[in-house]
Structure formats: structure tokens, C-alpha cells
């Protein structure tokens, strides 16, 4: 074929024939017109196959008109701007657009995966569940990769997304979803009453299906009426009108998410820096659902062949884009609406071979119009099958047979030559959003479909979305809903006068039997996107999947990205006939958000890169940066990990820093440490409840290490708390736990011990805090000019002093997390950097070196000190880590005490904290390595514990590790095996304190 075989010589309301647009589809250069959708333009170029199906790789063409499209899923854009799985019926054409088909290899016309179709009798519904079960080892290496490759829909983009995205938050009195006739009327009524209105529609223009319908409103064609209403709303100050905006989900308390495609239709906007997509989070006092109705296909044999589409889609192609679905068509219907499609095609110069109506002798205006137009009508018949052209790429004709509901195989049939079919099985109200948040549905027997029932949120459905297909009634309902939503007190708006032809009722048809053998080459597709056929549903039924929810999961019907928009009712109809039940007895599966898929970019919005998470920095951060420190995240903090010097790698730097602390003196930025002030007459008693050990006995000016458990008896935090005054404590928490612990303290004060007079004030960021640790620490301190006694006797271990170091006001705590003589000095944050520099200057002659968090961890591990989150994992008690001495036996009650007495926390066989020394001192065990009871050739092996902290210790010049091992404390000296990839490491159980067991170094 040459030229544009399917572009009609005239017509096409939305296209501008003066503006040609060039684009490519699968690398083929094509042209269309401004205003085309990709689907219309590709069809106009004579290309009917848009992709291959998910499971059988059958060639597929366009079926739908808009967002309901389930077959023509394409990838648009290149490289990092590639977006897969877009519905070609919604993609607006622009110059230079690059689109590709999906799920085919090597090409659309020849596809290897189509072999699945030949063996389809061996891959029925539930095939995956039945087949890919054994041997187990095959799953990972054979089945899963195979299924993943075969089942792909589209490809992910490559590289970082270059575009920007936005989140918007909006509040309104009334949100109208859908801007067809009913939506526009509801919005008009609400805005006239002064309400703040948001109205959105997924298509590029308002008006819905008005241009494809017949009849007048107030004497005007429907299209003119919607245009004037859209203009009115665009001008109204209290209305925000949005096109290309899909309501993707409805959640509790009328929280609605809108997905706005800002630039996709016009790359020039992108180039100007406009966000590509916006995600709107709308809170509406009232939601009005005017989402219309979607046509349903009919299940006849091979109803998925390219060229077979919904009647509304065919009508849209002709009237909107001047494109015919083919050269000669058949309309197959069970209702009056599809007659409009036949008439539209005829008007535009297309050829209609016949209208096949399952109804017997229907006499309505639509039927008469068609007859008067000279279109042949064949009543009481149904399509029994199609004659596929070569490779199933299209059709050469249809076979029709007399229709009788519930009949089995068809015997007599006749043939009609045609290359396309416009089918209509009736209309389903779009109730997806109604259901997202628990709205109930009710079955409407006139529609043979579900429509909105009750809902607990402030939401109303109007027009076709409510199952109201009569235009006058839909308008009345929409105006009333708009007025009710704002409780308009003024006189209601006058209702427009409508003239439309009366339609006759439809006759349900869920399944049209085929001729020949039932399922041989004959597939009656229900869910096109997931390749589920009527036979699959019946098979699931026979295999005992009685609940429709089970059938859905077993066959995957209604589970694809289109969420059953066109398939749901047909599936229920087939199940109803197979079981002899009614559709309401079958029930309905749940529609879930999103209504249509939307981009990850929109979900992320601006919350990417630097804005992904706020970063907290200590007052010394710039100094760390200037030293080219490695940083590590600790909660939201960035802490200096180590400070490598020129020519030094990370490990060398860490070892140097550790040895500086052990032999000279080191300086650590510990400002991130959580600090909470606890003040009030009951502060001491409150702390006795919070900590496992006693704090009411702590003397003013002294520090004590404390352990915290949750109510389950498991460790959650630890730290040193200082008594500043009788009624005033300063609690230190872990860096990551500061916020959590402050909230925890508040919770207990507010909800359990409400009688306590205590204030809790988090002060972490008020203070810069540093550790000066090492044998020379006191000499450094002395050089800084303290105005208080720092002698060993005057300022002993675990004491606190307030005063001045030179010009700097400080609190000084003699506490140690390294085992060395150590002071933690705290100064108000704005003095932090000055004091830091002063300490470095004073310490220079003693060889002071800054050390980072890794050195800190090795130093504490050498001393066997635990870290919450390393040695504990939320299931570890103080007894497990050997800190029995810190659990008070005197206090009647503290958090976790009663649980700690539960038998299972006292039982034998719990894992206990031990030290590990590997046989090879150079071998550093990996973190989390498992010890096994006995080594076997391959897993599974019985695991008896795991490594919790593991380092190379430069102090001891060998590796050290801590581990939680079953009954560890009674296994001292035992050698354990740690099977790793390709080897087994052996290590001896020891005491977890590796260095200076007597603690003499800190008590000098």
C-alpha cells in the first residue's frame, strides 16, 4: 500500500491538515498531522500492528480511544528520556517524536515468542503455578530469567532522568473529576455558588464524548455547548481547570492524587525548564466523579486481531482524526450506540459491510437512521470467528452465525469480507475511583454493569459514571450534585433543555461461541493485556477457584496495568454463565490505584539528589571537609569517618588515628551525640523508670552510664547521663537515637506517669562536643587554661566540671569510650569551631590528631564496649550482652523489667556476647558472618550465632571481633567455624575485652 491508506479525504475535527508532523515508529519515518494521537497517525500510515501480547506474543492493534487502551502500549523517547508502556491512544503527536513497539523480538511482524501461541494448549491459566515448580534449583537460573524476559512490557530508560518534576498541594471545596458534559455541568453549578472548584480531565481538551454523541442541548450541538461551558470555567476566578490531568487515586478523607502531564505534548516547554510532570495532592471537601463510561469488547473467537476495535474508538478515529480503521468494516453490537459509529463511517466516506446486532428486531431511531443510510443490518446474529490474514497481522473477514444466548458450538455460518470490526458490548461506568477508597457498587440490570452504590466519603458520581446514560437525566443529576456539594442556598440554576433520540435497551452478550473445535486456534480474549481468555476463566472455575478474587489471581485477569478497565465485566459475565449464577452473585474484584500508571519522576517530585533527605552538619563540618575527610551517614548526620593524609589509604589513616589515641592524644568531633535535658522535681525518679540502673543515687557533678530497654525487655539505647543539679540531668543518647528517645521520654511522661513534674528538652544541636582522648589528654587540657582543678584527684573518672577553658565556657565530662584517659568537652555550638582550633593548637606539641568514627569504633571494640545497633538488633537483652550488673535488682519497676523476667528471656540457649580471635591473626571476619555447629559441603548448615563487630586492631596488631553466640559465655576457648564463600575461617571464643582488662589506662 502507498500513501496514507486509512486517512480519509476530509474530516478529523482535531487535526490541522496544514501542519504536517514527522515522527518515527520502530525506526520507520512517518508523517501525521498536528492534533493527531500517535495511534491515529500510525494507523493513518497503514500500520495496524502496535505490539505483541504479553503471554502469547500475538500481534495486537489499537482497541480503545483513550486511557482504556490495553494493547497499543508503546515506548516513547530515547535514552534517558525513554518512557515505556504509554498508551498510543493518549500520546499526542509532535515533531520528532520517537516511538517503538514493545514485547517483540526481533520485529513486530516476525516474533519468536509467538510460538507460545502454537503451544498455547500447554500453557493454560495458572500455567506458571503448575509448571515452574521443580526442580527447585531451576527456579533461579532457568525459569525466572526466562519468564522475566518473555513477560516484559517495555524497557526501562537508560541513565539519569534529565527532567524536573513537581509536587503541588491544593485544597478546594469541590473537585470535579472528568470534564465531559456531566462534569462541566457539575462544575458550573458549584462555581456559580461561589465554591472553589478544581476540574480536571485526562484528555488535552474538555468535552468528553460530546463530539461523538448525537442530540442537542438548549438547541446547540453538544460540542458547542461544552465549548461554551469550558470557556466559562476557564474565565471563572474560583475555578482551576486542568487538562492532561488524570485523577490516579482517591484515598481517605477525600485525598485525591492528580497526575498532570505538563510537557509531554510539547518538548519546547521542557526546553524552557518547565517541569515535565506534576503530581497534585488535592484535599477536596466534596468530590464529584464524572469519569464517564467505557465501552466493553465482546468475547468472540480471535477478537484480538489487529483491526478489531471498540466502536467508540472507531468513531473517534473517524470524527477526530479523519482516520478510518480500515477499508471495509463490520459493526458488531448489542446496543444502539454503535450504530452511530456505522453512520459516522458512512458519512466520512468509509465502507460498512454490515451491522451485526445480537438483538432480534430492534426498532429504534438509531436502527432506522442506519437503514435509511443504506447500511445493511443483520439482526439476531453474532460474530462466531474471524478469518485472520497472514501471521494474524489483520483480518480478511468475519464468520457470523445466528445468536442464541447460551448456545454451544455454532454449526451454520456465513462469511462477510471486511478488514476491520467495530464492536460494542455495552458500556461500563468508570467506577475505579469510586472503589479505591472502599465505595460500594450496585449491579444495574439495564446496563448489565456495576455502578456506584454507597460511599462513606463526601463523594458523588454523576452522568455516565453513575450509570446515567440518558443525557437529560445526566445533566439534571450533575447540576444537582454541584449545588448539593456547596449546599447552595440560592435558587438552583435553570436546567438546559435536551433533545436526543431514545435508545433501546441492550442485550447482554458475554461469550459468542466459535465454529469448529472449541479452543483450537480460537481464543476468546477477555483480558487482552494479560492474555486471559474465556477458556482460562472457565478452567479456573473447573479447578475450584470459586471466589472471583481467587480466579483473578490464578488467571491474572484484571491485574494488568489497565486494571481491568475493559475486561472486568466480561470476565464476570463469563464466570456467571459458567456457574449458572448471576453477575451480582459472582461479585466483583477490587479496583486499585493508580487509574492509569504514572511516572516515578512524578512520585519523586523535587525530592531527589540534595533534596532527597536533609543533611545535618556539626559546627566542625567545614574543617572536616577541608581535611578531605571521608564521611559516613549516621541518621541524617554526616560524620567524619577518617582523615586520610596525602598518599595514605583509608586503612592506613584509620590505624594511624587509633595509635595516636593509644600513644599520644586524639580529638573527635562527637557533637552528633544525642543530648536531652531532663529537669524537674521528679526527674531522678523518672530516670529510675527509664533506665535499667539507678540514677536517683547519682551525686550532683557525677556521670553514670545507663542502659535503656523497651517494654519487651530488649535494649534500645545507651549513654552517659550527668547530674547537673538535684532536679536537673543531662542525658546523652546514641547519635541516631536522639529524636526517638526524646519522643519516647515524652510519651511515658504524657501517657503513663502523668503525675511526674518533669520537662524534657532536646538540646543536641545547642552544643558542640569533642572527645580529647589519650595519655596526653590532661596535658592538652592544662595548656588550654582551665579555671578549675583538673588533677587526677580533683577531677576523677566519671566526674563533671563546669567552667572555662581559656575564653570558652565549657562543661567537661571525664568519660571514656576508648579506654584511655579521656575528657568530653561541650561548649555552646557557636563556640565550637573556635574551641576545636584551640584544642588542636594546644595539642600540637603532644602530637594531637583528629580521629574519625571508624577509629572510634575500633577503639571501643578493643575495649569490648557495645554499640546499640551493632551488638543489639532489637532482640537482645542486657543479660545477652553480659551487662547484668547494670540491671537494678532494687528498683520495683522500670521499663522492660517485668518482661525481662519472662521465662523465655531467661532460657538456656540464648545468644551471648563473646570475643573472637581468628586463628590467622591477619584474617578479618566479615561483618555478620555466621558460626555453624558443624561445617557441611553445602547449605543448609545449623547456625549458632553471628559476628556483630569485626575489625583489624593496630593496637594488638591482629584481627578482633565480637559475636553473639549460642551459650557463648560457657564456651570460652572453643574454636568456631565460619563458612565463607570458598573457605572456612576458624576463630576462638574469648572474653570480649581485648585490651586493658583492668581499666587502668583510663584511671590515671
Amino acid at each position: 500500500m502507498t500513501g496514507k491508506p486509512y486517512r480519509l479525504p476530509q474530516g478529523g475535527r482535531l487535526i490541522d491538515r496544514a501542519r504536517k508532523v514527522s515522527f518515527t515508529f520502530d525506526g520507520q519515518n512517518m508523517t501525521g498531522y498536528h492534533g493527531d494521537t500517535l495511534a491515529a497517525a500510525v494507523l493513518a500510515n497503514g500500520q495496524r500492528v502496535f505490539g505483541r501480547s504479553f503471554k502469547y506474543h500475538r500481534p495486537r492493534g489499537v482497541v480503545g480511544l483513550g486511557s482504556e487502551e490495553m494493547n497499543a502500549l508503546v515506548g516513547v523517547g530515547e535514552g534517558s528520556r525513554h518512557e515505556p508502556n504509554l498508551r498510543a491512544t493518549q500520546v499526542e503527536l509532535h515533531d520528532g517524536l520517537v516511538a517503538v513497539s514493545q514485547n517483540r523480538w526481533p520485529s513486530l511482524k516476525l516474533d519468536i515468542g509467538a510460538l507460545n501461541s502454537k503451544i498455547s494448549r500447554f500453557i493454560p491459566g495458572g500455567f506458571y503455578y503448575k509448571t515452574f515448580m521443580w526442580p527447585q534449583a531451576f527456579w533461579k537460573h532457568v525459569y525466572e530469567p526466562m519468564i522475566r524476559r518473555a513477560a516484559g512490557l517495555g524497557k526501562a530508560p537508560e541513565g539519569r532522568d534529565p527532567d524536573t518534576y513537581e509536587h503541588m498541594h491544593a485544597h478546594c471545596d469541590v473537585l470535579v473529576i472528568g470534564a465531559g458534559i456531566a462534569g462541566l455541568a457539575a462544575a458550573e453549578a458549584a462555581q456559580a455558588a461561589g465554591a472553589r472548584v478544581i476540574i480536571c480531565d485526562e484528555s488535552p481538551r474538555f468535552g468528553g464524548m460530546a463530539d461523538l454523541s448525537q442530540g442537542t442541548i438548549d438547541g446547540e450541538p453538544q460540542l458547542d455547548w461544552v465549548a461554551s461551558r469550558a470557556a466559562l470555567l476557564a474565565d471563572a476566578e474560583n475555578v482551576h481547570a486542568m487538562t492532561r490531568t488524570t485523577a490516579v487515586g482517591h484515598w481517605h478523607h477525600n485525598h485525591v492524587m492528580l497526575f498532570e502531564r505538563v510537557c509531554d505534548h510539547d518538548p519546547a516547554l521542557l526546553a524552557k525548564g518547565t517541569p515535565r510532570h506534576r503530581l497534585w495532592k488535592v484535599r477536596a471537601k466534596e468530590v464529584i466523579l464524572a469519569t464517564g463510561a467505557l465501552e466493553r469488547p465482546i468475547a468472540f473467537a480471535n477478537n484480538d486481531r489487529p483491526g478489531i476495535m471498540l466502536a467508540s474508538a472507531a468513531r473517534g478515529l473517524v470524527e477526530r482524526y479523519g482516520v478510518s480503521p480500515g477499508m471495509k468494516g463490520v459493526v458488531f453490537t448489542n446496543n444502539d450506540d454503535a450504530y452511530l459509529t456505522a453512520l459516522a463511517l458512512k458519512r466520512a466516506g468509509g465502507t460498512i459491510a454490515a451491522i451485526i446486532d445480537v438483538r432480534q428486531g430492534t426498532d429504534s431511531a438509531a436502527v432506522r437512521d442506519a437503514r435509511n443510510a443504506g447500511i445493511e443490518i443483520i439482526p439476531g446474529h453474532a460474530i462466531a470467528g474471524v478469518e485472520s490474514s497472514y501471521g494474524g497481522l489483520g483480518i480478511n473477514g468475519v464468520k457470523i452465525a445466528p445468536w442464541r444466548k447460551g448456545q454451544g458450538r455454532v454449526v451454520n455460518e456465513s462469511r462477510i469480507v471486511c478488514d476491520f470490526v467495530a464492536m460494542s458490548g455495552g458500556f461500563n461506568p468508570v467506577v475505579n475511583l469510586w472503589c479505591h477508597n472502599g465505595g460500594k457498587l450496585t449491579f444495574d440490570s439495564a446496563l448489565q454493569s456495576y455502578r456506584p452504590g454507597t460511599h462513606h466519603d463526601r463523594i458523588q458520581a454523576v452522568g455516565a459514571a453513575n450509570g446515567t446514560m440518558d443525557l437529560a437525566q445526566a445533566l439534571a443529576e450533575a447540576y444537582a450534585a454541584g449545588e448539593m456539594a456547596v449546599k447552595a442556598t440560592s435558587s438552583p440554576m435553570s436546567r438546559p433543555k435536551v433533545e436526543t433520540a431514545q435508545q433501546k435497551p441492550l442485550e447482554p452478550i458475554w461469550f459468542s461461541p466459535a465454529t469448529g473445535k472449541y479452543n483450537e486456534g480460537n481464543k476468546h480474549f477477555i483480558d487482552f493485556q494479560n492474555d486471559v481468555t474465556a477458556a482460562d476463566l472457565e478452567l479456573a472455575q473447573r479447578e475450584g477457584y470459586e471466589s472471583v478474587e481467587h480466579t483473578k489471581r490464578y488467571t491474572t485477569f484484571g491485574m494488568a496495568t489497565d486494571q481491568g478497565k475493559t475486561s472486568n465485566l466480561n470476565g464476570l459475565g463469563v464466570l456467571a454463565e459458567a456457574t449458572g449464577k448471576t453477575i451480582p452473585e459472582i461479585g466483583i474484584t477490587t479496583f486499585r490505584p493508580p487509574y492509569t500508571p504514572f511516572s516515578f519522576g512524578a512520585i519523586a517530585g523535587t525530592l531527589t539528589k540534595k533534596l532527597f533527605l536533609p543533611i545535618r552538619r556539626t559546627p566542625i563540618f567545614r574543617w572536616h571537609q577541608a581535611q578531605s575527610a571521608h564521611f559516613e551517614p549516621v541518621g541524617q548526620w554526616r560524620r567524619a569517618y577518617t582523615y586520610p593524609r596525602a598518599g595514605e589509604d583509608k586503612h592506613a589513616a584509620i590505624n594511624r588515628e587509633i595509635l595516636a589515641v593509644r600513644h599520644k592524644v586524639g580529638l573527635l568531633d562527637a557533637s552528633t551525640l544525642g543530648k536531652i535535658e531532663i529537669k524537674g522535681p521528679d526527674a531522678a525518679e523518672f530516670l529510675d523508670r527509664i533506665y535499667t540502673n539507678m540514677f536517683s543515687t547519682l551525686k550532683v557533678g557525677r556521670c553514670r552510664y545507663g542502659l535503656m530497654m523497651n517494654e519487651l525487655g530488649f535494649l534500645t539505647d545507651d549513654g552517659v547521663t550527668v547530674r547537673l543539679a538535684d532536679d536537673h540531668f543531662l542525658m546523652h543518647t546514641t547519635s541516631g537515637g536522639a529524636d526517638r528517645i526524646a519522643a519516647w521520654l515524652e510519651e511515658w511522661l504524657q501517657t503513663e506517669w502523668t503525675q511526674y513534674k518533669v520537662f524534657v528538652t532536646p538540646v543536641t544541636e545547642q552544643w558542640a562536643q569533642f572527645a580529647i582522648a589519650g595519655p596526653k589528654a590532661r596535658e592538652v587540657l592544662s595548656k588550654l587554661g582551665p579555671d578549675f582543678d583538673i588533677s587526677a584527684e580533683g577531677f576523677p573518672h566519671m566526674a563533671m566540671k563546669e567552667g572555662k577553658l581559656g575564653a570558652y565556657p565549657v562543661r567537661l565530662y571525664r568519660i571514656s569510650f576508648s579506654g584511655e584517659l579521656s575528657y568530653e568537652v561541650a561548649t555552646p555550638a557557636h563556640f565550637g569551631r573556635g574551641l576545636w582550633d584551640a584544642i588542636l593548637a594546644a595539642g600540637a606539641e603532644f602530637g594531637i590528631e583528629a580521629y574519625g568514627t571508624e577509629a572510634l569504633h575500633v577503639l571501643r571494640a578493643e575495649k569490648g564496649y557495645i554499640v546499640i545497633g551493632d551488638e543489639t538488633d532489637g532482640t537482645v537483652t542486657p543479660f545477652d550482652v553480659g551487662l547484668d550488673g547494670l540491671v537494678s535488682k532494687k528498683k520495683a519497676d522500670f521499663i522492660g523489667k517485668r518482661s525481662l523476667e519472662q521465662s523465655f528471656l531467661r532460657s538456656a540457649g540464648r545468644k551471648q556476647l563473646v570475643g573472637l580471635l581468628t586463628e590467622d591473626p591477619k584474617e578479618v571476619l566479615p561483618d555478620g558472618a555466621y558460626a555453624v555447629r558443624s561445617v557441611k559441603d553445602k547449605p543448609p548448615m545449623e547456625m549458632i550465632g553471628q559476628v556483630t563487630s569485626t575489625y583489624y586492631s593496630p593496637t594488638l596488631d591482629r584481627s578482633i571481633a565480637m559475636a553473639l553466640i549460642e551459650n557463648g559465655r560457657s564456651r570460652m576457648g572453643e574454636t568456631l567455624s565460619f563458612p565463607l564463600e570458598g573457605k572456612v575461617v576458624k576463630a576462638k571464643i574469648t572474653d570480649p575485652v581485648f585490651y586493658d582488662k583492668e581499666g587502668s589506662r583510663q584511671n590515671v
Partner: protein
Amino acid sequence: MLIVHCHVCGAEGDETDFHYGGQAHIARPATRDPASVSDAEQRDYLFMRHNPKGLHFERWRCDRGCGKWFHAARDTVTMEFKATYGISELPPRALMEAATGEWAIFFKDKLAKGSEA
């Protein structure tokens, strides 16, 4: 996403501005008498929760606002907040009468006294 009203400071916000604190009106046995808490009592206090379809009494904290805890009665089907009340208070009488499970037992003598409600 729910809209929550703070009972203490009056702030209104998305539920992400608040912190959900689980089932309300659970007495902590160790506070009453730490010396005589049976294993079963402790188990129930820690783990056993009432999960009704309908009226639910729960705790919330005004996380991004005043920081205070308060009580709420919410319908778990419609998500409607029937009432909010102070963290040391009882719900309105009508809601106590509609309570189920452990709440019904807990509220029974409070209703008999007819005090706070």
C-alpha cells in the same frame, strides 16, 4: 491519607504530621503493682490487641505541632473520627456505650460511676 485534628492545640493536618500510637486505654500492669504481674497479664499487655471493624479507640501524638498525646475514637471502616479527647480522659458516654472488646470491659465501671463521661 487521614486528616487529623489535634485535641490539644487544635492543629489540623495530614496524618503524616501526626504519630499514630496504637490502641488506647491499655493499662500497664507493672505501674499498678509491679510485684504481682502474671506472665499472662504481661503477655496480654504487650501483645494482645483488639482489632474491631468499626469503632476504635486509639492514641495520637501531634508530632509536627505541639508534641502532645491525645486520644481519638475512629471508625475503621469509614475512617471518620468520632471524637478526640485528652490523654487522661475518657471518651464521650455514647462512644463508651458503643465500645467492644476490652474497651467495653474497661469502660463498664466508668459508666456505672457516671463520672467523667
